């Protein structure tokens, strides 16, 4: 069994770094953990960093897309950061459009984008 994905809180923002290849159970557990943590901490935004991830299949993409929509329902904003070139190419070829999702090249840019969005 894989360990759970750690979710860190920084002021009003939650930061998640996905460090290893996601199996289905870990992905679904993460979905639940993130929503619970948001509820508990009243976070306004989430940054999910995918820098170490070297492929995303349609199942993981669906879980990520769902997390983003669910987070939106709870009134928070999500930025996805660190999508590698190979991941971007395969996602589009697979036919997956993560539309209406804020993205940034890395965590630093992602946090900047999120703070600007929260101030607006």
């Amino acid at each position, binding site marked *: 069994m894989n360990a759970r994905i750690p979710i860190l809180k920084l002021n009003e923002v939650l930061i998640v770094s996905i460090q290893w290849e996601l*199996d289905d159970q870990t992905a679904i557990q993460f979905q639940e953990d993130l929503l619970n943590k948001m509820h508990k901490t009243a976070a306004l935004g989430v940054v999910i960093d995918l820098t170490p991830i070297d492929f995303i299949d349609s199942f993981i993409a669906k879980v990520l897309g769902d997390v983003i929509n669910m987070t939106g329902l709870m009134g928070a904003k999500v930025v996805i950061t660190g999508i590698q070139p190979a991941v971007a190419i395969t996602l589009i070829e697979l*036919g997956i459009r993560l539309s209406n999702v804020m993205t940034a090249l890395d965590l630093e840019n992602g946090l900047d984008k999120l703070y600007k969005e929260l101030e607006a």
Partner: protein
Amino acid sequence: MDLRSSVEIITEWDIVAARQLGRNEAKKAGFGTVDQARITTAISELARNIYLYAGKGKIEIERVTDNGKFGIKIIASDEGPGIPDLRKVMEDGFSTSGGLGAGMPGVKRLMDEFKVVSETGAGTTITTTKWLH
């Protein structure tokens, strides 16, 4: 040299095992990072389809050559219920499991060659190849 390796797909964890095997084989065969991601993603989609729709089956990965070209062939086979409407499953967005419906047409786009043989009640075999360019 072992030219053919395979993973039985019975549990969800076997999906992870199959794509790790695929990534290693793709790397060993000399594919770049983008093709490695394509092959890994394709295997993940095919293995998940076996797990979801047939319950169990097998992913085989094999090195192939053709007229001086080198590549990797993936054979996903099961003895499940078969695919009743092949044309439908090749449409983007069609899913009977609540998924994105990206799997089959997606795999076809990610790989170079793609063939499905399916017989209702007898099973499905999908053969797909990526060539080293």
